């Protein structure tokens, strides 16, 4: 297991330091690839091809958005990283390890180092906000301490600090089903930060939110990316949002990468190619 956990930038950040980093800028280390896809293919049930020979690599600290039409394989890419979906072929190297070959124990290590944020928040609605945030620690715990929901004082303090940073202090003891969509998504972010992840996967994080809540969420994630140097990979439907926030765009069509580069080089024609549409058929063409 130790072999699987290389020291991160000299020292492993403690629980408290993690929360501080959300404000204090830390020194940027030289970027190195944290995630690599090498000729990854995914075929569902031997019939539906979701991904064909997808290759790309993401450096530590990058803010990448994957755009593409529904059913083009965006979600499959993200879910292959933490093996919620198993890739059919190819290698996925996360933090120096081929995760397709990881056994059960190693897979748990991968998952606890990758946070995930969902379109529908995927919280346990009947539990309180703080309990949901603490769920982020389950991967770090012994099965039984997790089963009975025992968390250390330090973990609880850290959870409250993260909630404060996300402006949810007053909601800490509320049940999650009392929250608005934007608040629920912030709980989702807090839960993934509790994992002390090295990578955050965001699967349509703002697809169910109104424009102002969407901005709050994107701003928080952008700040987290900059201040904590935390790698973020997004699936986005909103091309304008992807262009504004990310430093790199991956365009995907029918399971193949058709664009990989900075947002300013992504012209209108390329966008139409990604969405396989002609001039005037996209919402981005309006106005």
């Amino acid at each position, binding site marked *: 297991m130790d072999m699987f956990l290389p020291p991160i930038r000299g020292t492993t950040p403690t629980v408290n330091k993690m929360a501080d980093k959300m404000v204090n800028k830390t020194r940027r280390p030289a970027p190195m690839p944290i995630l690599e896809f090498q000729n990854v293919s995914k075929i569902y049930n031997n019939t539906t091809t979701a991904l064909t020979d997808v290759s790309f690599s993401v450096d530590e600290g990058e803010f990448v958005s994957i755009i593409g039409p529904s059913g083009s394989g965006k979600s499959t890419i993200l879910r292959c990283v933490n093996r919620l979906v198993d890739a059919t072929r190819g290698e996925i190297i996360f933090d120096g390890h081929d995760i397709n070959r990881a056994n059960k124990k190693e897979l748990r290590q991968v998952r606890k180092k990758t946070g995930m944020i969902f379109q529908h928040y995927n919280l346990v609605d009947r539990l309180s906000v703080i309990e949901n945030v603490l769920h982020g620690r389950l*991967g770090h715990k012994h099965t039984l301490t*997790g089963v009975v929901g025992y968390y250390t004082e330090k973990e609880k303090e850290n959870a409250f600090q993260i909630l404060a940073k996300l402006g949810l202090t007053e909601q800490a003891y509320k049940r999650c089903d009392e929250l608005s969509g934007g608040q629920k998504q912030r709980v989702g972010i807090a839960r993934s930060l509790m994992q002390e992840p090295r990578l955050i996967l965001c699967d349509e994080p703002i697809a169910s939110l109104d424009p102002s809540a969407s901005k709050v969420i994107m701003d928080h994630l952008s700040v987290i990316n900059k201040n904590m140097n935390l790698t973020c990979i997004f699936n986005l439907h909103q091309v304008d949002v992807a262009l504004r926030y990310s430093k790199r765009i991956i365009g995907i069509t029918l399971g193949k990468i058709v664009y990989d580069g900075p947002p300013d080089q992504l012209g209108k024609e390329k966008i139409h190619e990604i969405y396989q549409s002609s001039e005037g058929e996209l919402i981005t063409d309006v106005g």
Partner: protein
Amino acid sequence: MLGKNQTFVNQTPLNQTSVFVKRKRTFTLVFLGTLALFLIAAAATNYDVIGGFESIPKAIGWLAKNFVPNAKAWSRLPDILTKLAETALVSVAVTVCAALGAFFFSLLSARTTKVNRWIGRGVRIIAAFLRNVPDIVWAILLMFSFGQNILTGFFALFFATLGMLTRTFIETIDEVSVACVEALQATGATYLQTVFQGVIPSSLPEIVSWVLYMIETNIRSSTLIGVLTATGVGAMFDLYYKRMDYSAASLVVISIVVLVIAIEIISNQIRKVIM
């Protein structure tokens, strides 16, 4: 485009009339068919329609005379209540035991939490079998091995309840906890952690609600099974009825009804609080 619209408009009234005509024809045919069946059945069984209706007031009169609890019947009330309590407690015990087993089985079989496809399928088949054999049939079958015993009733109800609850729990788990199970798995939580921190908290109210419903149902069924297995309040009713002590028998019925209504009111209150 315009041509398409026109044909659409022209066809609509035609279609509508034909639909109404069809429906009327169906109703008439069904009515005539039912009437014919009734007449044939009445002729075959020598059923006197007028005489049948005439006997209704007489029957009510007889019921009023014999089935109103008298003083002698009331003196049996303590005995009846003891047996009633026994029946009710057995039903509660059965339902709770079956619920524990059903939760375990449903975890093995629900899409979100199953460990293995074949185990899941096996559990579904077993549950379907247990559920589709009526509890009375279970009681008759089990009487051969256990005899007229309270254990017979217990197991008869247990199997039927286990089958029913397994199925409803599977549906509840798949309906309520798909999203949070995915999220907890993504944090690196183990199987048991996912169950205890995700599945149980999100599905508990539904599960409790189903358990309360099964307790109500089982109190009703257990009185019937009690007649067969000579235990509990069902046996009491059987005894009085066969002795032609109708007023005591009716007191048994009344006390069962009161208990069932009381349980229903209580469980509705509990549901309101937990939902």
